[in-house]
Each structure stands twice: as C-alpha cells, then as structure tokens.
C-alpha cells in the first residue's frame, strides 16, 4: 500500500468503512503483533493489545492529521494499549529487572532466549529497541511514538544492544 492509497484508506476509515480498517489491519498486522509480543511477552495479551488499538483507532481516527505518518500514529496507539495492559498486570517494576539475572542457555536455545532477553529489558528500552531495530522506524519516528527525544531513543537503543551483546557473548 503506497502513501496515496493509505491516505485514501484512512479517509474511508474516517467514514466508518470497516473494509478500510481491514486493509489497515492487513498492512500492519505483523509489525503490530510483533511489537506487542515483544513488549508484553504473551501472544494472547499481544492480540488483546492489537484489538484494543483498533478500537482506539476507530474512536480517535478524527484526531489523525493528514500529512503526518500514519504508522507512527497507529504505533503510538498500540504502545498506549500495551502500557495499559502492563499497568493492569501490576507487574514488578520493569526498570529494576536485571538482564544479567537471566539464565544462560545453550546455542540452540538462543533464538528463543534472545526474545526472552529482549523481554527482560526495561520497558522504555525494550520499546525503543523493538521499534528501531526490529520494526526499522527511525530515531525521530520512535521518539514521536513514545513521546521522547530522538537522542533519548538513540541512548536507549545503544544500551539495549550493549546488554544484548553482553548476554549473547555469555550464552555462546
């Protein structure tokens, strides 16, 4: 879907056209699910977050300003939904979680464990890393999604990579 097509689809969404919402879903399903799974750790919660994000999108599509990038708007909604779920879970403070406490796995378990290691990063660091390194948003776009400065995004991604590199070197 190119940008013009996307704008036309959004215009149809503004008029409540559910087919247009389906097109948006098909375009963004995988990146949204992947990001939510990385942030929440459980697929069921990730699906709930995506569902909630679409409900919020439906209710708030009028606040999307044409000319802005839709993907950053949509991901901002998704992240709010994810954070709502995390708040509801009343999990222990993610910022205090120490990646070094993760068990060391054998090489064939690394793929699963790297996802686990990402899951153990502090909340904001995890969001910055996932959006930048996995979903390939720019620092500026990640900053807009999370409401923080691009410099802060850069620092978070750098620290996340450092932690993951350290973890990989220990696990190999």
């Amino acid at each position, binding site marked *: 879907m190119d940008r013009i097509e996307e704008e036309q689809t959004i215009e149809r969404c503004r008029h409540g056209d*559910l087919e247009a919402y389906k097109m948006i879903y098909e375009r963004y399903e995988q990146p949204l*699910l992947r990001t939510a799974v990385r942030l929440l750790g459980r*697929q069921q919660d990730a699906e709930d977050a995506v569902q909630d994000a679409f409900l919020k999108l439906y*209710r708030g599509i009028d606040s999307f300003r044409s000319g802005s990038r839709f993907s950053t708007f949509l991901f901002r909604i998704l992240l709010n939904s994810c954070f709502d779920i995390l708040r509801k879970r009343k999990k222990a403070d993610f910022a205090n979680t120490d990646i070094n406490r993760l068990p060391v796995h054998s090489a064939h378990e690394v*793929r699963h464990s790297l996802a686990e290691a990402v899951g153990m990063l502090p909340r904001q660091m995890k969001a910055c890393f996932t959006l930048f*390194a*996995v979903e390939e948003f720019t620092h500026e776009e990640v900053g807009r999604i999370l409401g923080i400065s691009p410099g802060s995004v850069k620092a978070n991604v750098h620290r996340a990579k450092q932690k993951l*590199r350290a973890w*990989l*070197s220990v696990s190999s």
Partner: protein
Amino acid sequence: MSLKKFDDYEKGREQEALEARLQAEIDSLKTPISAPHLWERIEAMLRKEETVARSRPARFLKKWFILVPASALVLAGIVLGFFFGLKQRVTPSGILAGEALQKIELKERQYVQAIDELEKKARPKMAAMELEMVSLYRDKLETIDAQIRRCRAALASNPANAHIRRYLLAALQDKRQTLAELLAYEY
C-alpha cells in the same frame, strides 16, 4: 605482528562476529506470528462499537462541552480587553502605578513558573493518556494559550493597563488549573 596487535586483531574479529550474530538474532525476531482469528474479533468489536456510536452523540457534545466555554472566555477577554483599553485612554483609573505594576508582574512570573513545572509533569502523562482525552485537553490549552498571546500583544504597547493585566492573570490561572486537572486525571 606483535602480541598486542594480535590481541587487538582477535578482539576486533570477535566483536565483528558478535555484531553479526546479534543482527542475525534481530532478524529472527521478525518471524511472522500467526493470529488466525484476530481480525474476526476486531471486526466484531468494531461493529458493536459502530452500533453504540450511532446511539451516542455524546462524543461530539463532550468536545463542545470544553470548547464552547473556553471560546466564550477568549471572546469575552477580547471584547472586554478592547472596551477597557478604550476606557483607559479616557479615565486614568485603569493605569497601574509603578509599584503595583511590579507586584503584578511578579505574580505573573510566579504563575508562569508554576505552569512551566506543571507542563513538564503533564507531558509524559499526556503521552500515556487516551487520544480522545489528550485532544480535548490540547484544544483547551491551545485556546488559553491564544488568549495569553493576545493579552501579551496588547500589553506590549500598553503595559500598565490594569484590565488587560487582569485578563492575563485570569488566563494564566485557568491554564494552571487545567494542567493541575490533567495531572489529577485518572485513567
């Protein structure tokens, strides 16, 4: 090759290999996730929402509930500002004396300082709030900011006008209160 150079070379190679491995692992995080019935769930929920929205004009009204009084406040400010501005030229009672002007300027600075602090606290909260609420508060704050700008523009040519100062103070108070409300909002 000296031993130190050899060590550096080895470290560099290890670093490169680690970097390549990290990148490969990052790529593996892009593996598709299967959620076969998710769209059906979303569609059912949106259809339900559509039905509810049709029987609920409150969303539109809710926005106007904040916008109308805020716009009325701005209009009243402009009209009264002009009225008293004109009156002030005829009667000198609306002109502040030097000492009073200093006091009022100090008060304004205190408000501006308090607002700056509240704004700093409000920014992350707004980022986490529902979009609908964010847009309501943003609209209200923009309206108040417009009033503050108008008052400041009027004061630039007539700094001792007590009436415009009063409207500026009222707008600053209003902004402080709105930000405080936003911070107290529970979602």
